[in-house]
């Protein structure tokens, strides 16, 4: 039964991901992106990382997708639907990605030796605990990064009067 759930989620992720990349209209592809992220959130729940799934839904789908939509709205009105969304190097790029994929698959088959023995999932308390103890430096540092991003966005985005 659990395998079935996984297969459904995996199929959804792959399907939507391909759609994001190949859809003509940029707005449609942002919708497909939202669907992909939601299925990934589902995968997290499947992998007993509920907190992560919720964060994924909130931050990614809620935040970033809306950002994209705003950006598309701000810039999309000039481009009509008919413009081809992919450039000349599609075939060659596709070939490269296939080779890359083959290499990765070839490598992965060797390395992952079947399912590891189960250990109980990480509890939220453990997550929080390690966040402020072992990984306190990245935690603090990420704040500086986000601040910089915000200031940068304002500095460049502001349209001086």
């Amino acid at each position: 039964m659990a395998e079935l759930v996984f297969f459904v989620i995996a199929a959804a992720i792959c399907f939507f991901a391909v759609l994001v990349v190949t859809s003509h209209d940029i707005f449609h592809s942002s919708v497909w992106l939202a669907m992909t992220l939601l299925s990934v959130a589902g995968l997290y729940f499947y992998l007993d990382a509920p907190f992560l799934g919720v964060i994924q839904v909130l931050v990614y789908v809620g935040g970033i997708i809306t950002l994209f939509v705003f950006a598309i709205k701000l810039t999309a009105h000039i481009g009509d639907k008919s413009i081809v969304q992919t450039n000349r190097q599609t075939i060659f790029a596709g070939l490269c990605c296939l080779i890359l994929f083959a290499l990765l698959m070839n490598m992965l088959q060797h390395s992952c030796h079947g399912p590891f023995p189960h250990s109980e999932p990480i509890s939220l308390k453990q997550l929080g605990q390690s966040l402020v103890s072992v990984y306190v430096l990245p935690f603090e540092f990420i704040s500086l990064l986000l601040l910089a991003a915000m200031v940068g966005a304002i500095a460049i985005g502001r349209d001086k009067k």
Partner: protein
Amino acid sequence: MIPLSYIVALSAFLFCVGVFGVLTRRNAIGILMSVELILNAANINLVAFNRYSNGTDALGQVFSLFVIAIAAAGSVVGLVLIIAIYRNGKSIFVDKYDLMKW
């Protein structure tokens, strides 16, 4: 539980789709979306490895949390830059940005 290799294969596929997206989308925002896909592929990997490893530390999940945060920051900066160049009269199609070449 399903074997780890399936999940890793899934993330590899997602990664490759992302790479394909970055290489072929003409629209700057489309490229951004593909980058998001790559980051998610990495996230899946991290969470999966963390779940399947017998260790008790939460490195994988912590890392993916940070990745999400960085993804957010990255896309903010990216979109701002795209809008800035859009305002400068250039289109958002990447193959038009050839002011500086040779």
